[in-house]
């Protein structure tokens, strides 16, 4: 388990960019943290680390965004997904093993996540400060 503190969204992005460098291409990255914690900022940095420089925004309405960089990145938002049927009909299970899956609001679907995954927990300390815990990843 690795723990980091960031003081701005930009620093959060930079941290995620470092994590991106350790990825092999088919990881499941489960993100935990409430509204405004910085999950999308983290994903933006992660995508940048994989050569995806623009277009990353929260897939709250689309449920999943696909980005093509060094690897395919599938960016999920499970905010409105609260049942197994919901999850199944997003096609979520069809993506496993096909690229890097980044999942916002993993809280909602935790029992269905694969055990072999990276957990990112973002805790809001103040308006700009965040505590970011990374589990299951290589040292960054």
């Amino acid at each position, binding site marked *: 388990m690795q723990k980091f503190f960031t003081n701005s969204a930009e620093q959060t992005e930079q941290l995620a960019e470092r994590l991106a460098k350790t990825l092999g291409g088919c990881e499941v990255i489960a993100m935990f943290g409430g509204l405004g914690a910085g999950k999308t900022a983290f994903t933006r940095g992660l995508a940048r680390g994989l050569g995806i420089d623009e277009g990353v925004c929260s897939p709250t309405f689309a449920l999943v965004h696909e980005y093509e960089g060094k690897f395919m990145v599938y960016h999920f938002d499970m905010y409105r997904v*609260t049942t197994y049927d919901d999850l199944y009909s*997003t096609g979520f299970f*069809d993506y496993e093993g*096909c690229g890097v899956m980044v999942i916002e609001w993993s809280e909602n679907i935790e*029992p269905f996540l694969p055990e072999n995954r990276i957990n990112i927990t973002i805790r809001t300390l103040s308006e700009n400060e965040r505590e970011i815990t990374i589990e299951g990843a290589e040292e960054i």
Partner: protein
Amino acid sequence: MKIFAIDTTASPASAAILSDGRLLGEYYLNIKTTHSQTLMPMTESLFKNTNISIDDIDVFAVNAGPGSFTGVRIGVASIKGMTFTSDKPCASVSTLEAMAFGIPYFSGIVCAVMDARCAQVYNALFRLENGEVRRLCEDRAISIQELSDELNNYKDETVYLAGDGAELCFRAFSENLPNVRLVPENIRFQHAYGTAKAAERLISEGKLCTSDELMPIYLRVPQAERELKARQQK
């Protein structure tokens, strides 16, 4: 009688043409690329290399479920598209039944299992005897534990596990059920050949449907739902 059959319900994708019971050609891929990218090139190549026109096909068969949400839709939508204008008859085949029809090389029980996540599987049991496939129960979503208990009824027979849930079940069962075996890898998963053979049975029973009637078949996984709710409440 020519049957064109496809399967895209899980990780593998395949297409086959059967003519009067004989397999003329089959294309099978089990890679990570999505079926929307592989199915049509496979189909095109199959028709070209067998020198058969789509107009020569009498029945279009598809594994219509259970399976992955997107996979099932890709297969059903493709066959709907191919039969939309000709209105040729379609065969809606159970993926689990296609598995059993794909491996009629022994006598015993086929336990077809697809991983539905959360320790649940899509499952049906079949008895194989002298190349005949007999269904023992309806397609269902069932927990691995319940299935294990049920298989105690077949302790005197050899039970062969097929499908992408086979290894998962094998690990869970093998301690208590020494009569359980894994089907060899190359024929463990559903193939379009099995779909075509299952379609032959539907043809003989007069159970074909129209392009319009062909629909995806999804099985509900009630236990997974309950488990999710229970954990969320903790």
